[in-house]
């Protein structure tokens, strides 16, 4: 495992930007900034005409680290330890589970909790629990 340092201030600031983005989307389009909902609706069938906006949002997500690299000249730290097979399994589970449960860390964990939604509280407690259990099994039992 790769060691990482505790970054309370940067993480609080970055978190505030994520919250600000969610507020901006609500003010602009009246919708929840749930990444799984936005990404999954890039795939057919299309229920509305919001495709262009959702694609633009995702392109903004992709462009963010590149913009930071251009501005600061530093590459954001990123260590991906999982191999290809594990990435495929993890990706399938994340994609399926987030759509089946109508949200992920952003839609339920940030927007839902900020709206005091009981469903999002349940969802967040469940995914935190299974994620912690999964890391415990893979790092300490296997």
């Amino acid at each position, binding site marked *: 495992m790769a*060691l*990482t340092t*505790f*970054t309370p201030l*940067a993480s609080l*600031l970055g*978190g*505030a*930007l*994520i*919250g600000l983005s969610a*507020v901006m989307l*609500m*003010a*602009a*389009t*009246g919708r*929840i900034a749930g990444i799984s909902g936005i*990404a*999954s609706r890039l*795939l057919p*069938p299309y229920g509305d005409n919001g495709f262009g906006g959702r694609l*633009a949002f*995702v392109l*903004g*997500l*992709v*462009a*963010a*680290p590149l913009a930071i690299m251009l501005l600061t000249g530093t590459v*954001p*730290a*990123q*260590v991906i*330890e*999982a191999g290809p097979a594990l*990435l495929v*399994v*993890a*990706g*399938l*589970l*994340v*994609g*399926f*589970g*987030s*759509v*089946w449960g*109508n949200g992920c860390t*952003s839609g339920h964990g940030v*927007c839902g909790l900020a*709206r005091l939604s*009981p469903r999002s509280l*349940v969802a967040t407690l*469940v995914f*935190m629990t299974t*994620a*912690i259990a*999964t890391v415990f099994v893979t790092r300490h039992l296997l």
Partner: protein
Amino acid sequence: MVILVQFLVGLVFGTGLVVSGMSNPAKVLNFLDVAAIPSGGWDASLAFVMAGAIAVAFVGFRLVLRRARPVFDTAFHLPTAREIDSRIILGPAIFGIGWGLAGFCPGPALTALGTGGGAAAIFVAAMLAGMAGARWLANQRSLPRSANSRA
């Protein structure tokens, strides 16, 4: 205009992910590794990300929802589901396992596309396939039984 605004909103979200360190799967996994607390290997950063994001959204949503409507639409589209059904347990349970396996959830995975090379691309491709599968299955279940048997 609305397209450009949504690009900017995504850019702010992605910047938040990078600044907070959440675009780094190792940092996420080190938060989820609560068994590392006694040895000092635990990274509590993700809790601070959540705190910052929820605090801003909590106040911001209340200010925004006082308005009659969003800038680019005629009404707000807030989730209306209230029921605690099997899907709100099963979906997040499956999602959490995948999140714990690689340290990627959807936002950071998409943000990593530009910098994470092939690994991020593999994850995102599998994630989109999983999303398509869940949408297909949900569609099947919501169709009336007779429509299914006729097909």
